[in-house]
């Protein structure tokens, strides 16, 4: 008994589940790695260059800003790595690296740090970065390199290493994405190609199967609220099935809507960003449903072929209001109200 050191005192509960923010974030990165691997497989060196630059720009920005304003670096929580990876996966291969870098800096600083860092951002920083690029460099963001080019592992596209602030020059033919082909040419793509990622598009959005597997991994570990993607799927399927039934030539069918473009990547990995989504399960489901409606509306009736990014950003802004209205039912409140009524 003589050896007893000073007792540690703390407030109850004295035991913890062991869950940790950095563990959650790390597992999201694990779930994203196969997606990134497939991006590299289908787009080659260009994909490696864009992904590395995206992650690097986000992590460096986070490190510098955190050192400057919060004294300690917060890179260790892995959230900047996720932002960088997600951001990179939404970009087309062959995008000039200087654009990628600027986008990452903007996303992290304006999308995250301006609001107060981890946990305080209203918008998903990866999508803020992409939205900035979409507005600043619309042509580069919609110029798609064809997937599975023969020389993809030997040569970088000429546009990748464009000097900063110069207009990129694209060589060769550019491939249209399934969504653009549908919107502007009325051309549908085979669903199997969409599922297996044999089409063109942004780096990470092509192969729906791998994205879905990553989502299942996270759901199994209770690190993602499955009600958000399910909500999105339900409203997208119902709306597109209805309009496809009305005018099959004008409106794409539900399967095409689900598996084309950034819907899978957005629904599984971006809409489910814990910070920017509602806190209750019911709120999450409503959030997903509304987001699905927005996606369909933008894809069908706006000038853009793709609407996932804007739908998510818009719903990010709505999320706090959903939280305001959708609160869990407090134990005893209904019974209390009934009792008060009886007494009156």
């Amino acid at each position, binding site marked *: *008994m003589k*050896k*007893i*050191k000073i*007792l*540690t*005192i*703390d*407030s*109850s*509960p*004295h*035991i*913890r*589940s*062991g*869950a*940790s*923010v*950095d*563990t*959650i974030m790390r597992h999201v990165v694990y779930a994203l790695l196969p997606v990134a691997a497939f991006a590299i497989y289908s787009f080659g060196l260009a994909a490696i260059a864009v992904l590395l630059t995206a992650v690097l720009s986000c992590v460096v920005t986070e490190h510098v800003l955190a050192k400057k304003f919060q004294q300690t670096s917060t890179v260790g*929580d892995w959230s900047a790595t996720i932002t960088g990876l997600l951001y990179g996966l939404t970009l087309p291969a062959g995008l000039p690296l200087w654009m990628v870098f600027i986008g990452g800096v903007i996303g992290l600083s304006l999308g995250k740090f301006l609001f107060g*860092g*981890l*946990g*305080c951002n209203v918008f998903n920083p990866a999508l803020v970065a992409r939205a900035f690029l979409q507005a600043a460099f619309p042509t580069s963001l919609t110029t798609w390199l064809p997937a599975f080019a023969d020389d993809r592992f030997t040569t970088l596209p000429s546009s990748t290493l464009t000097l900063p602030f110069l207009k990129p020059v694209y060589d060769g033919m550019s491939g249209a994405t399934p969504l653009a082909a549908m919107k502007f040419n009325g051309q549908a793509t085979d669903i199997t190609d969409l599922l297996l990622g044999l089409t063109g598009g942004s780096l990470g959005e092509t192969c729906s199967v791998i994205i879905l597997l990553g989502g299942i991994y996270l759901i199994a570990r209770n690190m993602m*609220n499955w009600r958000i993607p399910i909500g999105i799927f339900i409203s997208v399927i119902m709306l597109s099935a209805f309009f496809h039934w009305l005018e099959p030539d004008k409106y794409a069918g539900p399967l095409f809507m689900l598996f084309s473009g950034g819907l899978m990547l957005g629904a599984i990995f971006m809409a489910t960003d*814990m*910070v*920017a*989504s*509602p*806190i*209750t*399960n019911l709120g*999450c489901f409503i959030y997903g449903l509304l987001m699905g409606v927005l996606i369909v509306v933008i894809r069908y009736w706006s000038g853009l072929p793709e609407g996932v990014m804007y739908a998510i950003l818009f719903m990010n802004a709505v999320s706090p209001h959903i*939280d305001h209205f959708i*609160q*869990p*039912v*407090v*134990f*005893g*409140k*209904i*019974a*209390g109200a*009934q*009792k008060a009524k009886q007494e009156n």
Partner: protein
Amino acid sequence: MPSYHVKSFLRGIHLEDYKDETSRLPIQRFPFAPLLILPLKQNAGRAPKPIVRQGQEVARGQKIAEPDGEFSVALHAPESGVIKKIDLVPTISGQMEPGIYLQSYPGSTQEVLEGQPCDWQTATPEQIVNAIQEAGIVGLGGAAFPTHAKLIPPKNEPVDTLIINGAECEPYLTTDHRVMLEQTIDIMLGIRYLLKATGAGKAVIGVESNKPDAYAALCDAAKQEQNVVVEEVNAKYPQGAAKILIKALTGRETPSGAHTSAIGVIVCNIATTAEIGRLLPHGRGILERVITVGGPAINNKGNYRIPIGTPLRFVLETAGVTNSLSRVFLGGPMMGNAAPNLDISITKGVSGVIAFTEQEIPRTDKVYPCIHCGYCVDVCPLGLNPSMLGLLANVKQYQEMAEGYHLKDCFECGACSFVCPSHISLVQQFRVAKSMLKKLKAVQVEQSKDNNNQQHHKQSAA
């Protein structure tokens, strides 16, 4: 009658319970400590008044403090000995409070001095309530609320159901489990007393499904009784919280801010019930209680009947601890209190002495900002929004916490802090907020009094 549909409640958490370490060990007697430290205030409410003086010899079982009003219970000498001092004693809160030091006679036979017996068949409800108060009985589950005080519900709220709480949902604790196995007869007798005192028509015993042997033993014993039902409830934390257990067993929801008697139910802990059945027929007082001494840092884990007032140091020395002992909790690890030092003593409300070394507890030094993961909302048994409450506590919006987010309903079960991946001490923040609200209210009352006085003065001056 065994029921196959296990009753449960919404949300909550499944905990690793570590009960196997001690649940098979029978209750053992604990040796008498040479010096007992007895804080007077061992119950919620008012402390009893000492009726002995320094240097007086007392017999084991003799009453040494008398209840001071309605919300107070008697205190008895747990050992034969001499009153060494009536002075301030160290308590779990870290503050010194009035108490009695009792030095035991080493050679004494420790025969128990008995008082007025109370027979359940002949006694009136008032006499039973009185006897419970005189026996010094409080809720042994941890809250230490005077048992007699809740047996007298308001006149307009008749009680139809008595619920006996045998859930014991805290990890490590197995005292109730052992009591259910070894004191089944006492429990049934205790229920008779309680049914008569409250006028309730039936008693329901709720036992968590992780104690099938206790459930079977109670079912067997209940066959002899006319109006006792034993029910299995899901082994989920915090199943043992009174309002949660009522909801699981009867489907009735206690209105927020009301007592359980508002819905015709009174809840009594099973160990308390057993003590009533054991003590009242002999007119004895509470002298000792069953305590689980366990946790990774204890060498001889077990369930011990430990005299009230035994110093914590004596308990740990007798049971043996490893050298790397770093934390001691009185009660379970979820809702128990951390002992500030080893000089404090066992009181009536202590259900466990759980000791940890430095290694078992994941270090939670690194606190991240809230990331709205919603884990806390998913587990809060009351449907509160701990995340929002925590964010409001950060900016000291205590009024908003109480009015907009129902802070006062929180009973600090700790499920939210347990699951929080950001390691935010939510419950601690809530406690601070509650005490700040209390202070603010006191200040407001004070100010309004002052205002009234000033107006009064002005009026009288005019």
